[in-house]
């Protein structure tokens, strides 16, 4: 789960990591009131969960209360990459001498956390890593030892700092590691953390992504998940989440469901290979019940984008007869309001085929053949 910048900064502040003075505003009037309490100049920052808001005017700097109010009004009426801006963060603008980067994420190859620092902060760190890898400092973290003070000091020192500033920066790195562990962050970064003209360090932007699988340890975010449903998910996505299905919205017109993430991905690839465009990714998982099949089909049949529905099931734990009964139940409940192509093989295959054939529904055995047919229908419609 991605946290908003203001949520991330509130957490950082709790751990005594310096962040700019500021507050969240939901209206321009409120923005003005916040500015009254702060020292000019100000930063007005759109709170959205996508990167690159600065490039489209989502971050602006102002000098007066009036200007702050007007700018907040403008940003609050914006849509950034399809997301409505509901809140703006009003902060004191920090005079930066230098912009740095520090973050912690996981490394798949060494199966551990890795701390990453750079003197080239404030820009996309992946760009820095690919164009100027010499500017990236990495420390792989031994989980039994953790990220210790001496690790942090080594990194700050490699960034060229000495004496008090080196110690101050290292102390912030150590604190950020603590946040990462206590919040189960799969990514946490300060980009940038700036060195001010007074020789202090302040995290002027912060990003935290919490490991979804660890959310049960952080019940304070339950409400966020519910509000996310209201604001950020499409109707199909909400229905899938409620039915316990894994669903990703895409922009084509072939509605697809299958069992297993890998098989689903391969199915999307096959559809594209034959010239079609997938409307979605929908994994019913292992051992899907008749009820789940109905829920999945309901989502696909009522998706306006999809002109054909392609079902690709390879039964392992999932039983073909259960799937067949689910398909029939969906026909009764919703009706086959668009063409359906079915590939059904695996556990209890004969029984599954018999159920469908007797109901007058044609079933295919090969995934490729079925993909081809689904694409043909999608292109003729």
């Amino acid at each position: 789960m991605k946290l908003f910048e203001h949520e991330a900064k509130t957490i950082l502040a709790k751990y005594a990591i310096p962040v700019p003075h500021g507050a969240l505003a939901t209206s321009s009037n409120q923005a003005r009131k916040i500015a009254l309490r702060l020292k000019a100049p100000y930063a007005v920052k759109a709170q959205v969960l996508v990167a690159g808001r600065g490039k489209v005017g989502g971050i602006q700097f102002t000098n007066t209360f009036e200007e702050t109010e007007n700018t907040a009004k403008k940003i609050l009426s914006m849509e950034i990459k399809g997301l409505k801006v509901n809140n703006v963060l009003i902060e004191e603008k920090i005079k930066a001498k230098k912009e740095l980067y520090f973050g912690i994420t996981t490394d798949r190859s060494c199966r551990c956390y890795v701390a990453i620092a750079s003197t080239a902060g404030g820009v996309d760190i992946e760009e820095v890593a690919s164009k100027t890898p010499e500017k990236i400092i990495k420390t792989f973290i031994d989980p039994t030892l953790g990220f210790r003070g001496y690790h942090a000091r080594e990194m700050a020192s490699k960034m060229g700092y000495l004496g008090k500033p080196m110690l101050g920066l290292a102390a912030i790195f150590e604190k950020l590691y603590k946040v990462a562990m206590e919040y189960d962050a799969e990514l946490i970064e300060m980009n940038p953390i700036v060195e001010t003209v007074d020789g202090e360090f302040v995290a002027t932007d912060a990003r935290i992504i919490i490991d979804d699988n660890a959310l049960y340890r952080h019940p304070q975010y339950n409400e966020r998940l519910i509000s996310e449903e209201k604001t950020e998910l499409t109707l199909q996505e909400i229905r899938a989440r409620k039915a316990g299905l894994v669903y990703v919205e895409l922009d084509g017109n072939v509605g697809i469901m299958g069992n297993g993430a890998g098989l689903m991905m391969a199915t999307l690839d096959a559809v594209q290979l034959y010239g079609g465009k997938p409307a979605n990714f929908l994994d019913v998982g292992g051992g899907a019940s008749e009820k789940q099949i109905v829920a999945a089909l309901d989502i696909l049949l009522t998706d306006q984008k999809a002109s054909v529905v392609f079902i690709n099931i390879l039964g392992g734990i999932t039983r073909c007869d259960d799937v067949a009964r689910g398909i029939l139940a969906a026909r009764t409940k919703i009706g086959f309001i668009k063409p359906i192509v079915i590939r059904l093989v695996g556990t209890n295959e004969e029984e599954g085929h018999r159920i469908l054939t007797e109901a007058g529904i044609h079933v295919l055995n090969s995934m490729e053949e079925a993909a081809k047919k689904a694409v043909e229908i999608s292109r003729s419609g």
Partner: protein
Amino acid sequence: MGVIVGKDTRAVVQGITGTQGNFHTRLMLDYGTKIVAGVTPGKKGTEIHGVQVYDTVKEAVQRHDANASIIFVPAPFAAEAALEAIEADIKTVVLITEHIPIRDSIQIMTQARQEGVTIIGPNTPGVITPGECKLGIMPAHIFKHGVVGIASRSGTLTYEIAAELTKCGLGQSTCFGLGGDPIVGLSFVDALEMFGKDKQTKAVVLIGEIGGSAEEQAAEYIATMEYSKLVMAFVAGRTAPPGKRMGHAGAIVMGKAGTAESKIEAFKAAGVGVAEKPSDIGELLAGRV
């Protein structure tokens, strides 16, 4: 022969009294796997399909000389189950459980590495050496004893390809799922090393997907080690949009990292045959092993 599991595997089922644990214990017993004991804290003295249940892994190991474990414990308790197995001197642990927090997985892998324990998963269908041992949840009937080793990041896609190979008359030495999570116990390089040493295995099929760089590392290993066995690959997720998790926690393209194109290119550059569709693997291998 084959790798990881075989005739000598004597397994404990952790979480044997749960729905999944109970159900798959029966299927594994039916296949001929030596399930020697079960573990569910608080259920000592009960019996599941004739298998004795204990409170601790240590006791199960002491009484039944077990050397492997398969874990069906829910995610919040899975890390502890895995650590218990490692401390009880189990050498092969299959972690079926999905949705284990990354921080827990990192702890498991660190401990396993220190103790020399092989972890399959988490979020894996398990491992099967056809005709000898099945320690997992895969449908057994699609596998056949033979010479092709399969390592995969996906469950159903493994079934798809294994069934195709079996249909073409190509049996398998061992098939296993690395697991769909970002942090897993074994890599494709580990798989290549194991299959490289296995006399029964003549060819290796790697089934990859978007996310991470396990495929690129495998390609580099094949090229630099001048790998002696035939390797074929399939990579799922060519059409996956960046930034979206495609079902598996580990299947995500971040920026430019982890794309299918990069993996396919790396394999091709290392001389590995890459199948465009799952069904092509059988044709690519037929007549060559």
